């Protein structure tokens, strides 16, 4: 019910926009044209005449025309009921984008609602709070990056990573020894992994790595890639380190007089079980993201080697690095916790 309400609200939030927003009230398909490209793919091009009722500013009706291909690779088919974001160019209005906030907002509300039903109000709000803080931190880093010309991107995102880790761990675990150790191992492993990556890249002189294939580049791609990798590795390593440390602290609660080797073996066995599936999570996300481009290039008659080189190169590199981080986290965490615990026992 709350989801429906959020959806209704976001469908009617046109007054919040400075751009004109309109709702499609009538669509008539004007003409159809069959075309075949040089790779024997046939497709239909349609032209729509769309009647749009404006929802903010002047509440009048305008007409726009739109043409799209049946496969909708880049063009879009609009239907009655769709809300559009428009843009004034001169005296005519152009379609900027479909208005998607209602769908996304409804999904987000559904998620938060279910989270609230599942876990207690407090736990959920802490989790949400940590996500919000991270988004704010991230926005701040982006702002610095964009507005100062000589900002050291790598340093900026490293600091951001440290802040991320501290904020999320402190909010989820509280200010405890457990949190401190998890933070320490996370940062240590991330540094080790990035160091390894830099070494290999320097030794091989970036052989086989195509930084130039990166999308949406507005600055030096290499540092941007490093920034991406640091944040990605951090998340994965933090997840695993938190799990291992939590288990090892559980052991400590059960019996104080344990040796380094006990902690080490227990940590390793838990880590072994989770590392495979964790790498799989990142792998699936990355490979799904490259899929549209792979389809498009396949249809354009490219061979697989070229497609892999162009679309999957950096993604594979990033997944492999995260994988190395995840694997490295196992011995690092086990050893560090074991060492600290063993020292504590001897001190007592």
């Amino acid at each position, binding site marked *: 019910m709350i989801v429906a309400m959020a959806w209704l609200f976001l469908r009617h939030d046109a007054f919040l926009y400075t751009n004109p927003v309109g709702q499609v009230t009538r669509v008539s398909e004007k003409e159809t044209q069959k075309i075949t490209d040089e790779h024997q793919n046939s497709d239909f091009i349609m032209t729509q005449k769309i009647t749009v009722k404006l929802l903010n500013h002047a509440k009048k009706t305008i007409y726009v025309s739109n043409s799209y291909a049946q496969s909708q690779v880049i063009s879009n088919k609009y239907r009655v009921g769709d809300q559009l974001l428009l843009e004034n160019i001169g005296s005519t209005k152009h379609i900027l984008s479909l208005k998607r906030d209602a769908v996304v907002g409804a999904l987000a509300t559904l998620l938060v609602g279910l989270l609230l039903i599942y876990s207690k109000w407090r736990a959920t709000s802490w989790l949400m709070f940590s996500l919000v803080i991270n988004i704010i931190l991230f926005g701040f880093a982006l702002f610095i990056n964009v507005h100062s010309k000589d900002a050291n991107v790598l340093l900026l995102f490293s600091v951001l990573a440290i802040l991320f880790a501290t904020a999320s761990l402190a909010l989820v675990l509280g200010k405890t020894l457990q949190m401190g150790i998890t933070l320490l191992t996370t940062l240590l492993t991330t540094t080790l992994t990035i160091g390894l990556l830099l070494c290999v890249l320097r030794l091989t002189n970036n052989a086989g790595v195509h930084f130039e294939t990166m999308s949406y580049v*507005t600055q030096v791609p290499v540092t941007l890639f490093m920034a991406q990798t640091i944040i990605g590795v951090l998340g994965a390593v933090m997840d695993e380190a938190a799990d291992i440390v939590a288990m090892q602290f559980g052991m400590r609660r059960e019996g104080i007089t344990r040796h380094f080797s006990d902690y080490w073996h227990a940590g390793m066995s838990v880590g072994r079980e989770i590392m495979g599936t964790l790498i799989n999570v990142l792998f699936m996300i990355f490979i799904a993201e490259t899929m549209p481009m792979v389809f*498009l290039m396949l249809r354009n008659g490219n061979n697989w080697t070229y497609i892999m080189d162009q679309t999957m190169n950096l993604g594979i590199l990033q997944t492999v690095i995260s994988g190395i981080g995840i694997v490295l986290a*196992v011995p690092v965490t086990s050893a560090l916790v074991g060492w600290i615990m063993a020292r504590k026992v001897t001190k007592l």
Partner: protein
Amino acid sequence: MNAIGILVIILFVLMVVVGRIQGVKAFLGLVCNFFAIFILIILINWQFNAYIVTAIISVIILAVAIYLGSDNIEVTNIAFKTSVIVVAILMALSIILQYFGQFQGFTTENSEELEGLSLTVGLSFSDIAMVVMVISVLGAVAEAAMAISADLNEVIERSPDMTGTSLYAHSRIIGGQILGTAINTLFFGVLGANIPLLIWFVRLHYPVAMFVNAKLLMTEIVTMLLGMLGILLSIWIASWFIVRTNVKQQKVRIKHERDI
């Protein structure tokens, strides 16, 4: 030599050293899944029905990820059952989302990459958008289902006489912890991947309206939200399954003792 090749070898060696047999299995699982997706792409490219192909390949990927991940048959069966149900729900949801949100294809921001490519390829990119959403949540769902069932199974083994309600309470605590860390992983993964795009948006002074409606960014966010939903649902359903089977087993045991 190729830098990526070296790193893959390093990863493999590390997995074997740290994980021993389990590490080898996990590496094999990754390779298998890579080929499964390869087949998925080829089949859809041959104009097979995208919905059916995705459903079948998803089940295969889940099976590989789960059954190669652990040897405990009780854990894997429950995890598998759970993740198939969750992925079915998410697939239905993604079809609805795709219908309303139209997340398919590329935008003018991609025009540099699209140069020289024919854009009238006669393949429904609307279906592909759905495939992308489903595939990207598979890993997260499998991971969460495995984690909760493995942990709860350990709790049951440690104290087999636990009542249904107290087991349920345990599942809540463990579930909450898994949820927190898994959601963070997903969040950072997506955030990291989108740094260039976000910088692009900020640099070119996109209006706020585009931040909350633009196709590229919204696709990423919807994928992330679906993943989080998947994690939550798998924890929920898996713990329900475990508690139910546990209660049933206890009833059988009590009945059995009474008969004696």
